[in-house]
């Protein structure tokens, strides 16, 4: 009996770190990933991509998209932290999954890689649309580019794209030299939507049409309006990658050499592997995930946070900001983090200086305006999670006894007052008793 309980304790002791190593605020990297395939052969044809994920410690769960036992959550708990949908032709998911539950999955802060392909189903398009991505409505259309295709097999639908977004956070610090091979369907983004972002754009000469039929009318999507791969970061920092090509992730294109038409540079290996790997690092929060501690403020020379400031107080403000490295929280270093002292509009806007250990601080004088202010840190930087913190603090006017009692410039008036009083006193004394 004793033994049993001890072993249970022992087991739970072993399990504890495992359990706690799952997706959470403190540990944003996804661990359990569901991969939905419309054909299990994809598992081997895209094995390099999957194996890099596994080697980074992800626990992949491969399922057929029409598996009748599919479920994202059980008893209200999500079973997975991430979702990869490599099932472009699936018209209907099995089990309890549908586009609504996938949208809910994203809204719960979890991540998604969605890949469409030519002849993508309405279901996949619907999910993409929920994320702000409009695939070309013509289901047989592909991206065609007569000037920047890959010379390797001479097909103008195999695009050698090198118009990548310039962001170290999304695509890693090492530059992707080789063009990324892409064969698939075009999509466009709503320019007013500030949550989505083109990661891989088509060249200005690209257009979207059915390659096997003659063009009867001008194509709807042309040039660099076409996005090949886009990312979306939702307001709750859930990240989504939407690719128009499933082949982009395939072993064949990972391995294939590439020479862009009209370019003398020939690369042994396409940029696909690096692109896909780096992108997956971003989407699963191994990079660019920021965390801020609470906003700390106090008067200069004090350490406790006051419940109210007075106008013209000098205060010090600091906030700790950390970045998730994939394994641990590292200090975030930047020179563009700002704090606002805000009441309907920012009265003070200060750039915070960092001590390179994650602490950002500044000091300023409370403006000569009373009211209910907020310390606000609004940090929206390309590729990074959004920091939006605010803390309310009232600012009061002077108390009745905090004003200066005697103002130096008014001494003539005080003098006048007191001499008049004295004069009146003397006068009444003289008038009354001097007879």
């Amino acid at each position, binding site marked *: 009996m004793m033994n049993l309980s001890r072993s249970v304790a022992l087991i739970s002791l072993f399990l504890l770190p495992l359990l706690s190593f799952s997706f959470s605020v403190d540990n944003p990297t996804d661990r359990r990933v569901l991969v939905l395939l419309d054909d299990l052969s994809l598992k081997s044809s895209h094995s390099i991509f999957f194996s890099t994920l596994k080697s980074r410690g992800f626990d992949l769960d491969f399922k057929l998209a029409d598996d009748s036992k599919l479920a994202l959550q059980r008893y209200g708990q999500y079973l997975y932290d991430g979702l990869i949908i490599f099932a472009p032709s699936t*018209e209907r998911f099995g089990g309890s999954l*549908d586009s609504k539950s996938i949208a809910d999955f994203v809204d719960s802060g979890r991540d998604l890689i969605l890949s469409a392909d030519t002849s993508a189903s309405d279901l996949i398009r*619907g999910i993409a649309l929920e*994320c702000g991505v409009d695939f070309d409505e013509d289901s047989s259309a592909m991206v065609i580019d007569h000037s920047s295709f890959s010379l390797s097999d001479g097909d103008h639908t195999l695009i050698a794209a090198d118009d990548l977004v310039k962001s170290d956070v999304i695509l890693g610090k090492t530059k992707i030299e080789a063009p990324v091979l892409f064969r698939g369907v075009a999509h466009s983004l709503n320019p007013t939507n500030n949550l989505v972002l083109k990661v891989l754009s088509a060249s200005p000469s690209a257009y979207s049409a059915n390659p096997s039929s003659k063009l009867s009318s001008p194509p709807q999507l042309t040039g660099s309006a076409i996005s090949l791969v886009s990312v979306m970061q939702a307001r709750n920092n859930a990240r989504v990658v939407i690719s128009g090509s499933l082949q982009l992730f395939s072993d064949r294109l990972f391995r294939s050499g590439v020479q862009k038409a009209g370019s003398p540079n020939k690369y042994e290996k396409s940029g696909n592997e690096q692109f896909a790997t780096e992108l997956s690092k971003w989407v699963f929060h191994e990079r660019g995930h920021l965390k801020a501690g609470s906003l700390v403020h106090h008067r200069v020379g004090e350490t406790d946070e006051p419940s109210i400031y007075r106008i013209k107080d000098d205060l010090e403000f600091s906030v700790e900001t950390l970045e998730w490295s994939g394994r641990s929280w590292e200090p975030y270093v930047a020179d563009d983090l700002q704090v606002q002292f805000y009441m309907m509009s920012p009265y003070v806007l200060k750039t915070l200086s960092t001590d390179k250990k994650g602490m950002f601080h500044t000091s300023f004088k409370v403006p000569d305006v*009373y009211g209910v202010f907020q310390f606000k840190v609004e940090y929206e930087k390309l590729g990074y999670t959004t920091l939006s913190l605010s803390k309310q603090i009232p600012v*009061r006017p002077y108390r*009745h006894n905090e004003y200066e009692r005697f103002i130096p410039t008014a001494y003539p008036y005080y003098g006048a007052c007191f001499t008049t009083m004295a004069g009146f006193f003397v006068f009444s004394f003289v008038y009354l008793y001097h007879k």
Partner: protein
Amino acid sequence: MAALERIPPLVVASFLPHSLCALVIKYESVIHEFDPYFNYRVTQFLSKNGIYEFWNWFDDRTWYPLGRVIGGTVYPGLTLTAGTIWWVLNSLNIPLSVETVCVFTAPVFSAFASWATYLLTKGSGAGLTAAALLAMVPSYISRSVAGSYDNEAVAIFALIFTFYLYIKTLNTGSLFYATLNAIAYFYMVCSWGGYTFIINLIPMHVLLCIVTGRYSPRLYIAYAPLVVLGTLLAALVPVVGFNAVLTSEHFASFLVFIIIHVVALVYYIKGILSPKMFKVAVTLVVSIGLVVCLIVVAVLVALVASSPTGGWSGRSLSLLDPTYASKYIQIIASVSEHQPPTWPSYFMDINACFSPLSDASSFVVLYIVMSVYFSGVMVRLMLVLAPAACIMSGIALSQAFDVFTASIKYQLGEMSNSKDDVKEKISTNNETKDDASSAKGEKVAKERPSKKGKKKEREPADKPSVKSKIAKKKALVLPLEASIVALLLLIMLGAFYVIHCVWAAAEAYSVPSIVLTSQSHDGLHVFDDFRESYAWLSHNTDVDDKLASWWDYGYQTTAMANRTVIVDNNTWNNTHIATVGTAMSSPEKAAWEIFNSLDVKYVLVVFGGIDLNINKFLWMVRIGGGVFPHIKEADYLRDGQYRIDSEATPTILNCLCTGTNLSCKFVETDGKGYDWVRRTEIVKKNFKLTHFEEVFTSHHWMVRIYKLKPQKNRIRGKGKKLKLKTSTGFSKTAKKNPWM
């Protein structure tokens, strides 16, 4: 003896308001309406934190995000009074809650007010009648019922008492009373913005006395210390501060202050110079004085003209020009208390004006003339008129009784002219009353002129007039039957007055307006929806959540729900109110953005089907439009009216306030979407909100609380409407499958 006899009626008169006001505790001892809740909250703060904290109180829970410096913007008289009462009672080990003290402050002070009226009216009969009338007059009852914890509750007492002390000083010429007068004036300034009435009325009376040649040192003593001390003391009240010398409302008193000194100087010089020299001096001084006056007036005019409102505050301007408010400041016009009263409300509220102007003092005449004018302009000032009317009718009534009882006595006396002693035994009652009242009649007749500060040479002229008056009374003997009938009629009239007052106190003015009742065929319904909603807010929302509502409900929300509000009944910032008005009258999305920018989490609306939020809506549009020109009233009007039936304009149907109201499922309440107030059917019944969600509806659907939905987590693409694939959507795609 007579003095002793006067005491019981006076006690009765003092307790009358108390008992009347206790009628009001209909449901429980609650504080009424809107402003009293604020005063209650302030009093709580005072009793908890002490006077210095109160003085420096910066309240961050109202007018978010501007906040309000309460200590510097309230008239502290009422709060300090109640706070002191509470403190005294507690230190005497009488543990009353702050709320109880607040609820009963008004009745206590109405008793004081009747006592002050008795003192002011002079003469036992008239004074007692006036005190009794004031104790019951509905317009005063409306402010003195238990729970009506508002500034006016103590201010009316302060007003009457200040007038009494002024008259007293005028009669006695004592500096002691003059100082007391200044202190009473200080209490009035502490209590109510209506103190400007005093500081204008008294100078007018002084001017009247000077013009009619009744200047005397007593007048000087009554007036000069009041101006000097009163102004100094008034400047001590934070909310008044330098206004006491800077705004035009106070200029009249300073002008008269100068005039009275000039007059005093003239009298002094006249006393020490020979008549001939005096004439020379007069011409000299008058010519120089005129020049100086012209210069001063020119400077004043230039000063006043250089300030945008001409140096007058908006509310005061609307007193001088009744159309000012509706022309320029919508917010002032929107407060119903600031609107001209309707004639029925005169009847309803005064009802005591059944007297001809009697031979009253010029002060009382001036008082009533001015208060009639002011109350004609602003219904709230009806309150100022009430004591004046009571004094007038008190005098008139008691004189009427005098005349009738005197003639009855005379007739009886003639019938039994030989048996004087018997008559005296029979009508002891009658006679003492008669004696008292005729003595009073003489006293009135004698004292009025004397208090005017008549000069010595006028005295002989006065005495004959008194004598002739008595003679006239003798001549004014009415037939016995006529006097008895008239007496009965008067008593009946008085009885009707009492009945009317009691009814008004019990029905019209004792409704706390926070708890409503409605009488329907199946019995009495009590609508306690407001308190229900505030309780919901305090239990279900976060302490720092901000609530937006129209400003009427601001005070109640902060006091009862303890949640931060955007605007409240202290309508000091027109722009802020206009922002809320704009939000309320904007389409849903725009409204969401405005509210979000103000960090609002919840929106409280009063359901248009039963109460009046749609009536208030026109003010939201007007006030909003006054500051933000894109809100145009014309967009909301159809045929010059606000309509929400089939002819409503699209703008009004799309805006938030009506939107939320209409969405409120009129349909659910009665199945038809029928607006009970306007008796029309509403067109847009099934209104779906996208940026707000309903979180609370009170029991009788009077109050609804909406929550701002957070921004969507994702932004949808704008592609063709691929419907979010719920199970129904799938069946559609599944149907397409077979071809694949």
